[in-house]
């Protein structure tokens, strides 16, 4: 026990890394690495705690203002790298920006609740999370039954009274109930909408754009400027069909020099 109490925090970390095989390896809280590993943080509080640790002082001595700045810088860098941040990171960022401005205000102008109080709250939350994290690591490092210490694997067994005793744990019960509920609950299936361009949209778009061009223009140049490859494929297909339809109506002319060569469109004679 006393040995565990003396164990440095670093060793507790190692225990986490071991037990926590399911998640990406957590690097040392070094900011350059942080930007690359957004997904390995379990929410903004987790990230804040990691940043706080990078201040390399006792958590009780931590500078909240410095921490706020670190966090905001991290969010900015993530934005520059176009990493998609979950909303709660941004909410925390907004809240911390508010806290920062409050902390920088002269005392008499400070709103209520005071930024000091908010900072203290954040401070207490970080301490609590850290305390529980260390407690978990110390728990897991104890001599555990079946790993470090052992009971008799095949005891003779004590003879029980003859009368039958039915046994089921509360967990069995609620698990079974959960299964029944899952089995009988009505299910709603939602088909995810894929981004598509409909034929009507394509006809409207192609006929509008072709009217604005004077000369032959490639079919691809009529496509919307969009990054989504699925939408681009759909737009290409529907624009091609739209071009055929418009050509049938005499509203566009189509030219292609060879098989698989680019397809060109221009306004049809009916329009000119």
């Amino acid at each position: 026990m006393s040995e565990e109490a003396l164990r440095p925090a670093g060793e507790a970390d190692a225990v986490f890394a071991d037990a926590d095989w399911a998640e990406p390896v957590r690097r040392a809280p070094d900011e350059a690495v942080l930007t690359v590993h957004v997904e390995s943080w379990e929410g903004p509080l987790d990230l804040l705690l990691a940043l706080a640790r990078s201040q390399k002082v006792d958590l009780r001595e931590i500078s909240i203002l410095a921490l706020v700045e670190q966090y905001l810088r991290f969010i900015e860098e993530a934005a520059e790298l176009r990493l998609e941040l979950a909303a709660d990171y941004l909410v925390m960022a907004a809240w911390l920006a508010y806290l920062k401005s409050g902390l920088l205000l002269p005392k008499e102008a400070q709103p209520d609740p005071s930024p000091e109080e908010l900072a203290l709250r954040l401070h207490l939350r970080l301490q609590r999370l850290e305390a529980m994290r260390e407690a978990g690591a110390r728990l897991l490092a104890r001599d555990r039954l079946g790993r470090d210490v052992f009971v008799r694997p095949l005891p003779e067994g004590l003879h029980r009274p003859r009368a039958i005793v039915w046994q089921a744990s509360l967990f069995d019960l609620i698990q079974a109930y959960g299964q029944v509920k899952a089995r009988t609950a009505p299910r709603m299936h939602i088909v995810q909408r894929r981004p598509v361009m409909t034929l009507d949209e394509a006809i409207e778009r192609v006929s509008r754009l072709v009217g604005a061009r004077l000369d032959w223009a490639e079919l691809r140049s009529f496509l919307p400027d969009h990054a989504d490859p699925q939408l681009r494929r759909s737009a290409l297909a529907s624009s091609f069909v739209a071009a055929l339809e418009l050509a049938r109506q005499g509203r566009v002319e189509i030219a292609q020099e060879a098989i698989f060569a680019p397809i060109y469109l221009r306004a049809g004679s009916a329009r000119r």
Partner: protein
Amino acid sequence: MSLSTAERLVEAVLFAAEGPLTPAEIARHADLEGSMLPHLAALAVHYAGRGITLVERGGRWHFQTASDLAHILRREREEPRKLSRAAIETLAIIAYHEPVSRAEIEAIRGVQVAKGTLDVLMEAGWVRPAGRREVPGRPLIYATTPDFLSHFGLATRRDLPGIDDLRAAGLLDPIDLAMEAQDAQALLEPAGEGEDEEDDAGA
């Protein structure tokens, strides 16, 4: 060293049992009257410094191998159950704060408790629902089980590593309570010491 017949019986019952036993269960199986505690205490002394020790876990007793032999006996296989970081933290929060609601766990971790996390802990037999908190919404509250104590080698929850320090530091109190305590302290103490917190914030 010779044992009394009662002690031999208690020893044999514990040895043959399939799991940890309460003193009442021991008495019933050994067909003994009176308190089992003197017998258990005598046996515990007898087994001190041996390859097997008699331990109490949450009011139940069993024999297990001595923990200082763990480095030799440790099996080469994987850990009995690998837990995610979320599950470890959740387990620690439940153990140190019990009984605790899901919302309270989430307040400490700063993220939602994923669906599977509590399931995994309950399936491991370490956590159980322990009634409801009588507040609006009557949320379910969770606590640890005797198996949790056995698995982690704790005689009682008081043996949780560092729990006294955490409690003394107020780290097991809700934040609001801690804030009040801080306010009270600020009022009681001369301004000089109260400055610490401001320095932190202002630095």
